[in-house]
């Protein structure tokens, strides 16, 4: 028995294992080497001289170690194979709640404006006529005050009451402009998200209550150019795209000048689609420079300060963004809808 012989057994073993693909056969190889080769090595070892014994014994033990370890590995592998399981079976159902899509949108809008130093304010939904109309420069005989569009509260001898005592459901979030300003000193940067009301029949694009986001920035020398910058940033962040703005003349009693703001359609990249009605533009908000009469109503010096205000419908933006085709889904409480957000 020589050292080379043992080395040869080792090489043979490793080669055989290497060549063999089947796990079962590899296990058989291990068994064969343990039962036949190893025992013959060790029995031959007995005949070796004491001097050789130490060296040969060490190598033989090393060989045994290698074979046993390989056998162990094969067993582990076989076991792993038996532990097969289906990763494609469905996971456990873990229920989490959801926030309303309009809550999500409000929060996104709020966080964009917060970055520009705007604060969030709110005011009552049940408002008096003075804040809703008078303070916002609606003439006493303005048709909107008689229009069926406004939801008035039934009050005895309504006609003889002063406008501060006549109640209605606010038709816009603009009354909060005045409520906010009259209690503070300029400059102002504020947004007002909130529920507003129209007395109109409901259909897929009209609701009796819906949400507006109002904004106001007042200071010395606040200009239309500033408006374009602030709103450009807001809409760019909101739609997460490079957007273009378009200001068109319009009319609101509480702003002068007044304009409608269109934003380039980020859905079709202005190529024309159903959302922008093939025009490439989406009408997104009404805006303008705060009318001096409104500043005066709120006890702000209109000679010293100027500012812009704007208002946009949150429902419509959420409908565009989430591809919702019926505004009534927002107020229907249907879990099949709510659970999607």
């Amino acid at each position, binding site marked *: 028995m020589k050292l080379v012989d043992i080395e040869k057994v080792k090489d043979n073993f490793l080669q055989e294992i290497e060549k063999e693909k089947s796990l079962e056969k590899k296990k058989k190889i291990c068994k064969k080497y343990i039962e036949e080769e190893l025992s013959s090595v060790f029995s031959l070892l007995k005949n070796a001289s004491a001097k050789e014994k130490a060296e040969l014994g060490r190598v033989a033990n090393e060989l045994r170690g290698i074979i046993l370890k390989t056998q162990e590995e094969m067993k582990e592998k076989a076991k792993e194979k038996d532990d097969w399981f289906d990763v494609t079976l469905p996971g456990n159902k873990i229920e989490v709640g959801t926030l309303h899509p309009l809550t999500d949108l409000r929060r996104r809008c709020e966080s964009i404006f917060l970055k520009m130093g705007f604060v969030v304010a*709110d005011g009552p939904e049940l408002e008096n006529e003075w804040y809703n109309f008078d303070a916002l420069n609606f003439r006493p005989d303005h048709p909107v005050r008689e229009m069926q569009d406004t939801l008035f509260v039934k009050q005895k001898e309504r006609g003889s009451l002063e406008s501060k005592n006549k109640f209605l459901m606010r038709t816009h979030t603009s009354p909060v402009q005045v409520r906010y300003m009259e209690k503070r000193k300029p400059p102002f940067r504020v947004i007002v998200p909130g529920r507003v009301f129209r*007395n109109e029949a409901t259909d897929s694009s009209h609701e009796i*209550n819906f949400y507006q986001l109002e904004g106001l920035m007042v200071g010395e020398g606040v200009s239309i*150019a500033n408006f374009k910058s602030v709103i450009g940033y807001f809409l760019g962040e909101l739609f997460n795209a490079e957007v273009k703005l378009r200001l068109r003349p319009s009319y609101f009693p509480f702003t002068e000048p007044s304009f409608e703001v269109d934003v380039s359609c980020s859905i079709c990249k202005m190529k024309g689609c159903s959302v922008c009605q093939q025009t490439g533009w989406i009408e997104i908000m009404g805006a303008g420079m705060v009318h001096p009469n409104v500043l005066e109503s709120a006890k702000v010096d209109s000679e010293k300060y100027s500012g812009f205000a704007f208002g946009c419908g949150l429902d419509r933006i959420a409908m565009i963004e989430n591809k919702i085709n019926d505004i009534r889904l927002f107020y229907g409480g249907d879990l099949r809808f709510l659970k999607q957000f």
Partner: protein
Amino acid sequence: MKFSYNFLQSFFKEKLPSPEELGEILMMHFFEVEEVKKIEEDYVLDIDILSNRAGDCFSHTGVAREIAAITGMKFEEPEVKIKEKGEDIAERIEVDVRSACKRYMLRAVDNVTVKSSPIYIQKRLRACGVNPINNIVDAANYVMLETGQPLHVFDADKIEGEKISVRYARKREKIVTLDEKRHELNDNILLIADELSPLGIAGIKGGIVPEIDKETKRVYIESANFDSVTIRRGSNDLKIRTDASLRFEHGLSTEFTKIALDRVVQLITEVAGGDLLKGVIDYYPEKEKEKEINFDIDELRKVLGTEISIKEVEKILRALDFKIQRGGSKFFVTVPFFRVDVSIKEDVFEEIGRIYGYENIKPIVPEKEIVPAEENIDLFIANECKDILKNTGLNEAYSYSFINEEASLYFKKDELIEMEKPVSLEFKYLRPSLLLNLFKFLAENEKNYSHASLFEIGSIFKRKEGVFFEEKVISVVLLGDDFYRAKGVVDVFLKNITGETAIYKKKDGVSLLDYNKTADVVINNVVVGVIGEICPKLKKHMKIKGSVFGVELSFEKIKSFYKETKTYEEILRFPPVLRDLAVLVPEKTEYEEVLKKMTKEGGSLLRRIELFDTYEGKEIPQGTKSFAFRLIFQSKSKTLSSEEVNKTQEKIIETLEATPEWKVRK
């Protein structure tokens, strides 16, 4: 409002831009053009003229002037020359204006020939949605479309007496209008009448009596300026809206009264022949004043945020018919009579801004003043509330702010706020609670789900002693769960928002909830809300099968307990000692009562009490139940000995058993 492209072209020698281009230009500098449509050899532009410009732009002249100002093209109004002949109108008729009329003018033309209008007039009328009738009526309508001033024509021979008056109708007075419809009038409605009967509803619609027909030879032409509110109310009362009433409702300059009258008599004599009588009746008690506005160009530049030149400003204002005097940077402008909407410098700035073009103003980032933004604590807390409720697995819903008549039966009538004229009875009252609409949502959802849990944070509205109140509340509703799941939601919610543990006190008589299964939610002796099962009557009415629970908490009260920072409580190093204890009590004993007694006696060593079982059944006497508690004793400063724990436990048992019918089973 519809405008004829050919009609607009008639004010210009130069060719107008194509109808589509014109639409684009108007949209960017004037108002939105909703549609451009080809009709015969004309185009119709449907322009959304907003109410502030009704006074001058419910007319082709007004829109043509805008086109001239925007494009720089030369614009010419038709030249008006009239020739009078024969007797003076004043010898024939007298006008008595009693109310609601700022100016009233009348002219007469004799010997007209009633026939069809020239084709160009008929086409332009049709393009604007007006039906041609005959040359006299068409001329009046044509001049209205041209100038914006409504006009009316009468057959002079059908008028009784020698006096025309402008007066309010008498109660129950009646009139048959030109469309042969009969109307009963009221004393808000202004009339034009002869000495016998009404001739027409002033500013709204003519009567059939003095109608122009083929035999008509002598006509009176009325041009007047009626009070806008009177016309609007009358038109609403009678539910008649006409081209005339629309224009009067918005108000227009009294200068138009004369301009349009001159123009129409010229057109009538042109298309129907006849002789224009001398003179004119002109009731005009108060002449309109010219408006003057001063501003500095720096103010304008500050508002626009752009360095517009003096030359540019002058060019724009002149094109819009403003008269200008200037001293350096100071402008003194006179507003043209037809611009009833312009009265302050900001109005002038808008004129300059829109013609200059908002697209020519470059965005400028506002200079940021260092003003620390105040935090909106309400919003912050509301957001946190929503997040916690969401994290407990609830779905946020938004419900209507209104309830219907039927639902109102569940509330006290005098606490409800009623709407004046809601579009549907579904919206008759403001919601005095969120629960009702949320229960309705559960009923709907039960078609698809056996379990559902919703929450909403919103305003509710109540009337107390005639005063209106609006209050924010937080509501939760559950379907298919029991009372204790609802309570669990409230507990975890309050723990997170207020850091407090609420106690629940049974109460009765809350709207919408079951008389026997309702409790107040109490923090530190303050009732912050209610929790309970839906009342059986409402549940039946809503056809809900599963169990339904509701919670409504006052936002203000929750806010008052809001804790932003939480205080760390030291983790105890010494081992706890556990003892189990079963208490046998009469079945109608509240858990809270048992708990209180143990807590009080346990002192500071008794760290926690956990209820791990409640038993009612065969093994214990009828009419009793057993609470199984685990008591956890732990000290901050040492390892507790058995003796110490035993002593406290004994004291607890003693106290419990001191209550009649209570027994401790060890």
